[in-house]
């Protein structure tokens, strides 16, 4: 058997997007196989199709020589495929061993009572098998993230896994903890287990992976043996798309600096970030997921405490402790998580539009002005809604996003921060948002735009600030910006 797993022509569509457009993956037994690609390349989606969290629309999966299709995670687990998730999901108040055997506790004869003695012994045996040094009776919540991960891996192994999938396993680990993880990975490998490894860290990839498969925008690019490829070529394969001129970028004179951040840090979230923003400029924030971009703008907007550094606006230092302070300083933030902290689903389009601007409607509220303001911006931004009274949750994602932009425009900000402004919205609305952002910049507003889509960052930004693991790795001018250069900064491989 040459391959333990063969996935062929996997297609997965979500409403409005085709996340996987017929991709392949072949994993040899007893190897570590790295999945490479930018944010949104489709790596995680592919893995979710494998383990039965998603059902692929097309394609075939051959596992140990047999055609399979798992309906849920449990079936995949029982077949010997398990995934250690990026976000671990332990039950913190229970012990390590209870977490390992959750849902399949060994029972005493009769099947009513849990056999704690056997559970303990099984756990000790399991830990011994893969050289994990943990107390089975420790409370899960007391463990470090690294140790919780060990528990998760043990759990995977306890299912007699043939394939263990790890999605960004080292993102929360220190260097020594990561070393421990690599030791366990090598251990598993020598026992014939295959590992599918998703990571953005180049040194890890080249350190532990035997094979690599590269994806881009939901398509299969290439498979290589790690020793036949170097970092430069890998990055090229990851980002090597043709850039089309679909961005309505306007060129105009950019004004003087109006906003400056100096040595800004917020605890462990990010450290020592400095940049300047000029009037009418679009400053792109690039970086891989988890690099700390969202945390920076949320800190500027008063959602996380500032632990070091200063913020200046129009040359004067400003203090921001809450979103309210930021709004008073004429800063607006279109958040990344539209449902979580953007819209008020049960409220009307009109109320959603004017909610950040309530101070301006007097007492009793001037409903006529509220309606006319909402109407004005709904028309200006071409929001498609049956009426102003419509509950916003009934609108499409793109239209909800436009309402949120309207909300901030009503407060007349000097600086508008947009975090993944086009995520999860359809192509038409996307290009509308793009022209809107450019137009706002042309009108003299300064824009900070976080985007995980490389073409968007390159197409829209005047300058691009690149982050890597909580640190700024560089600022690139539009003229010098290429996909390869941004990716090199983003993976800190410069």
């Amino acid at each position, binding site marked *: 058997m040459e391959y333990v797993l063969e996935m062929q022509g996997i297609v997965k569509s979500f409403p409005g997007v085709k996340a996987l457009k017929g991709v392949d993956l072949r994993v040899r037994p007893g190897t570590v196989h790295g999945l490479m690609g930018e944010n949104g390349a489709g790596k995680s989606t592919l893995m979710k199709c494998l383990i039965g969290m998603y059902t692929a629309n097309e394609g075939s999966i051959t596992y140990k020589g047999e055609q399979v299709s798992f309906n849920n995670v449990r079936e995949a687990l029982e077949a010997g495929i398990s995934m250690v998730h990026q976000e671990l999901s332990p039950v913190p108040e229970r012990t390590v061993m209870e977490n390992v055997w959750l849902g399949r506790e060994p029972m005493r004869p009769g099947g009513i009572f849990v056999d704690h003695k056997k559970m303990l012994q099984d756990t000790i045996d399991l830990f011994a098998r893969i050289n994990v040094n943990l107390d089975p009776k420790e409370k899960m919540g007391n463990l470090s993230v690294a140790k919780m991960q060990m528990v998760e891996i043990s759990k995977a192994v306890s299912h007699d896994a043939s394939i263990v999938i790890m999605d960004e396993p080292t993102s929360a680990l220190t260097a020594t903890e990561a070393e421990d993880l690599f030791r366990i990975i090598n251990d598993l490998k020598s026992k014939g287990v295959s590992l599918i490894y998703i990571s953005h860290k180049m040194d890890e990839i080249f350190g532990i992976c035997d094979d690599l498969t590269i994806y881009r925008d939901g398509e299969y690019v290439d498979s290589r043996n790690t020793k036949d490829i170097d970092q430069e070529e890998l990055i090229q394969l990851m980002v090597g798309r043709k850039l089309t001129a679909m961005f309505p970028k306007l060129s105009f004179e950019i004004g003087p600096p109006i906003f400056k951040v100096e040595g800004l840090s917020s605890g462990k979230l990010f450290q020592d970030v400095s940049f300047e923003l000029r009037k009418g400029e679009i400053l792109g924030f690039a970086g891989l997921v988890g690099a700390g971009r969202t945390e920076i703008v949320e800190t500027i*907007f008063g*959602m996380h405490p500032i632990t070091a550094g200063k913020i200046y606006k129009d040359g004067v230092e400003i203090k921001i402790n*809450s*979103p*309210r302070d*930021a*709004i008073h300083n004429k800063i607006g*933030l279109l*958040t990344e998580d539209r449902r*979580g*902290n*953007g*819209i*008020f*689903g*049960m*409220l009307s389009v009109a*109320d959603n539009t004017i*909610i*950040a601007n*309530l*101070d301006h*409607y007097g*007492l*009793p*509220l001037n409903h006529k002005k509220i309606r006319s303001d909402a*109407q004005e911006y*709904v*028309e200006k931004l*071409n*929001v*498609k*809604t*049956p*009426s*102003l009274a419509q*509950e916003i*949750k*009934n609108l499409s994602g793109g239209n909800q996003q436009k309402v949120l932009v309207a*909300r901030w425009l009503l407060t007349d900000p000097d600086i508008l921060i947009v975090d993944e402004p086009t995520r999860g919205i359809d192509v038409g609305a996307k290009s509308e948002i793009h022209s809107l952002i450019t137009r706002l910049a042309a009108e003299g507003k300064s824009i900070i735009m976080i985007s995980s889509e490389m073409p968007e960052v390159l197409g829209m930004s005047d300058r691009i600030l690149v982050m890597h693991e909580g640190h700024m790795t560089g600022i690139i001018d539009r003229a010098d910006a290429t996909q390869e250069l941004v990716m090199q900064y983003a993976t800190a491989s410069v």
Partner: protein
Amino acid sequence: MISMSEGAKGGVNIAAIAKKNTVWLVLIVMVIVVSIATGGSFVTPVNISNLLTTEAIKAMLTVGVMFTILAKGIDISTAAVLALSATVSASLCQQIGPDTLLHLSTPMPAFVGLIAGVAVAAVVGFCNGFFIAYTKIPPFIATLGAQLVVKGIALLYTNAYPVANLTPGFKIMGQGFLIPKVPNVVTVAVVVVIIGGVLLTQTRFGKNIFAIGGNDIAAKVAGIKVEKNLILAYTFCSCCAGLGGVLLASRSGSGIATLGFNYELDAIAAATVGGTSHTGGVARISGVIAGILILGVINNGLLILGVSPYIQQIVKGGIIVGAVVWDMRKHAKKA
């Protein structure tokens, strides 16, 4: 550009109105059923006046508690606050006699009693709001604690004796008729409902509470002072209960530490039946008015029909759970 859907614009859409006001339809149906069942004795002016007077105090509590439910919280301390306000206000307005609670040389004017009663309530409400907003303890727990503490204080304050023999000036508040034929408690209840409605729809505070109940993180991001508004909501809720307490003491002629037993639950029930969603962010004052009246019709109608009070409780319980199930389904379908 807004593309108006047809039908929303043209003509009166009866089905849409009915759908939006189901709770009023339910009320109307209930009134008809009860009227027929009682052979007409339900719809006499005397009985209607009776019903309204009985429900008036609870109506005040309901308006208050609506704000806390709207803010995705709850207040179960309202009845205890009512009792404390009743005893405090009554104790200031006792006629001079051998066994007054405070041994004042002269009784205070009625308005002092009123203000003191509401002020005490405001303090409790402020504390509720403060703990809920800043320590993030669940509102149910915060107000459960407040309920016990406040009840204890009221009992301690009065030694569990009724504070009776109140001044005529104090008693006239709850017993008089400022508007001919309309008992003052009903008038005040109507005023409280109107104030509630105005706060809800005509002020920033109202909009803020809708937003906080709907999505408190988004509210913060939109620059709303979430903590301050929560404190205001709980304070307002308590003040409504305090006002109810003063009027109840005045109407019944004595302040008792056990007044308003279970009123907090009736108020929550009325607000809930009236469409105030416990998932936060949804409430309409018209619905809440209907909710108050529905509970009133059940109480009063079953009483006239001679149904055992135990069965009344069972009916009420069923209706409340039914209302919430229906509400959840309605919202789940839309989402």
